[in-house]
């Protein structure tokens, strides 16, 4: 038999129909739903007189435009969209974790937290960061609203078989360097379109030693270099994270599931359409300087000079990015002052991220010119952090401690940057205006964001004792 990759195994076991000259019809094991990309899909069902085929394989939550401060929703459009989700879920029988239910949160945080993101599954959601769930050895990818409607109606999706790529993270990750730095460095190396058309499997010793939270950070940003999905073969770390979660199999089912999951990893002799090696041995904490995630340098580095680019199109892109970011060529990253710090998002708002950031800020104070925000990824993460006393550490240092949601990652709720404000952010996109019109986003790890909050500028988190 032809040796198979993890992707091959999942793909093959989910093909419902495959005809020549047509995309395969792929079965969807889990459909995650949120308020922004679903209302038109439900409306489409209503207009066509269709039902949700498998509400028991679907779950919805409210995350993108929920306020993170106490009090009512003041934005009438946001309220209408949240109401629409509630009504649609009631009408079509889809389970919903609404705001205030105690289990709501960012859709890519609650899936794993509930134990419903499992190895070997196909998982889709009308959200590009669905790749996060690939950390469990699932094939998970983002879809548009028309596709959301397709999955609601049929529990399937027509899919062309993507190419496969393996990214080998070689070497041992230095202390103080995070999963976020690994994926930012990989994107810097491959470019923001380097993954287009591929499903990527992340592998190598540096991946194997990562916790599940960190693996989710890596897979989360697959879309930021255009990959269709990112995945990591499940192992004992995966199983230990999953055991006992409400949606995970239990008892004899758990043992059966383990047997199945242990056989998912790709055959050693299986081949990929492409391989990329990323050496992490000397990796330093990363900071983006521009308006897409490939525009990234180590924290000890400097902003590039457009004059160094021979290609006129590249030079123009760098010039445009620097103009938008309000940065002069060759500015040292550590000399860049920040106005805001955002610790949150589906990339970096899980319990480990909050613990890491709290360890940096414990007993210290946020710089007087910085406004800093911690937004837990879910109500569950918030509860756990509070049980561990992390909220006290953050608030004592001068951070605001908020309720769960997507918040300032994309600023659909009131948490936005003002024009010209500069933010050290643990989120995933530094696009123009992403966090607020005219806002300037620098992507960093939770430790570096925390260190920047204390120092008032970017700084290597390992040096924060001197900087603060």
């Amino acid at each position, binding site marked *: 038999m032809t040796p198979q990759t993890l992707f091959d195994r999942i793909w093959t076991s989910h093909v419902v129909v495959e005809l020549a000259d047509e995309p395969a019809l792929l079965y969807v094991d889990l459909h995650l739903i949120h308020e922004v990309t679903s209302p038109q899909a439900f409306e489409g069902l209503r207009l066509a007189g269709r039902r949700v085929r498998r509400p028991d*394989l679907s779950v919805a939550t409210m995350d993108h435009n929920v306020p993170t401060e106490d009090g009512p929703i003041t934005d009438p459009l946001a309220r209408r969209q949240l109401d629409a989700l509630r009504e649609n879920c009631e009408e079509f029988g889809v389970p919903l974790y609404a705001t205030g239910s105690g289990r709501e949160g960012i859709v890519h945080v609650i899936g794993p937290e509930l134990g419903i993101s499992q190895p070997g599954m196909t998982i889709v959601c009308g959200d590009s960061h669905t790749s996060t769930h690939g950390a469990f050895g699932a094939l998970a990818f983002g879809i*548009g609203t028309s596709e959301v409607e397709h999955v609601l109606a049929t529990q399937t999706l027509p899919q062309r078989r993507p190419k496969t790529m393996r990214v080998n993270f070689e070497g041992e990750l230095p202390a103080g360097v995070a999963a976020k730095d690994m994926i930012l460095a990989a994107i810097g190396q491959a470019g923001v379109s380097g993954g287009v058309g591929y499903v990527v499997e992340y592998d190598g010793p540096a991946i194997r030693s990562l916790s599940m939270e960190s693996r989710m950070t890596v897979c989360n940003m697959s879309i930021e270099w255009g990959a269709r999905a990112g995945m990591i073969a499940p192992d004992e770390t995966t199983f230990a994270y999953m055991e006992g979660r409400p949606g995970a199999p239990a008892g004899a089912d758990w043992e059966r599931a383990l047997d199945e999951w242990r056989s998912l990893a790709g055959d050693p002799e299986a081949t990929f359409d492409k391989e990329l090696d990323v050496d992490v041995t000397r990796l330093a904490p990363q900071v983006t300087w521009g308006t897409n995630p490939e525009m990234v340098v180590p924290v000890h580095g400097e902003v590039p000079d457009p004059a160094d680019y021979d290609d006129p*199109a590249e030079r123009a*892109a760098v010039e445009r990015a620097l103009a938008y970011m309000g940065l002069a060529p060759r500015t040292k990253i550590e000399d860049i002052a920040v106005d805001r710090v955002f610790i949150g998002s589906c990339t970096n708002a899980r319990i480990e991220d909050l613990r890491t950031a709290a360890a940096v800020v414990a007993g210290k104070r946020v710089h007087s010119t910085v406004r800093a925000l911690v937004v837990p990824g879910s109500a569950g993460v918030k509860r756990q952090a509070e049980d561990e006393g992390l909220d006290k550490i953050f608030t004592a240092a001068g951070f605001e401690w908020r309720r769960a949601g997507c918040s300032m990652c994309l600023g659909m709720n009131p948490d936005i940057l003002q024009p010209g404000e500069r933010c050290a952010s643990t989120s995933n996109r530094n696009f123009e205006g992403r966090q607020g019109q005219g806002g300037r986003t620098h992507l960093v790890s939770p430790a570096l964001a925390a260190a920047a909050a204390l120092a008032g500028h970017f700084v290597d988190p390992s040096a924060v004792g001197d900087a603060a």
Partner: protein
Amino acid sequence: MKPFRSVTARAAVLDRADVDTDQIIPKQFLKRIERTGYGEFLFFDWMKQPDFELLRPEFADAGILLAGRNFGSGSSREHAAWALQEYGFEAVIAPSFGDIFRTNALKIGLAPVVLPEKDVERLMRAVAGGGSLTVDLEAQQVSGPGDLVVPFEFEAFARESLLQGLDDIALALKREEAIAAFEHSHAARVDTSALPV
């Protein structure tokens, strides 16, 4: 879905790589629950910059967009494709597209045409001062001023779907038997209705 066969229209040139869907339609316009009402917010922030390409008089009323590589990267928001279509674009030509954007465009009858970088540049030069192109999906070619003709590849099934304006949900529902048979042999991995609330 609205069928797409061919369009002859003025072409606009947006010669930038990696134009993400956050630029095409910013997040503050994603709170609508309708499929319409996005065209007027297309490239909302960039439209406020006087030197933005789409504001040039020679690109007014354009129906075809020529763009740089990796157009429509980033967020899965189908609103980006809706906004382009509502603004008046019927086809986008680029060296490559973000995967999700490309699918979204196909689903609504906005033709995403991939051409090698040098061909896109040739077309961009041809209409830089204003001009019309024809994107003909049946003939699989773009034609323009003079005798400029550039053939393009298009995946057969996607082409057929666009030409006929096929409803792929209806197509999948015709495979109900196959889906039911698959479900019979493929046990559900989770039961979301049994989760704690």
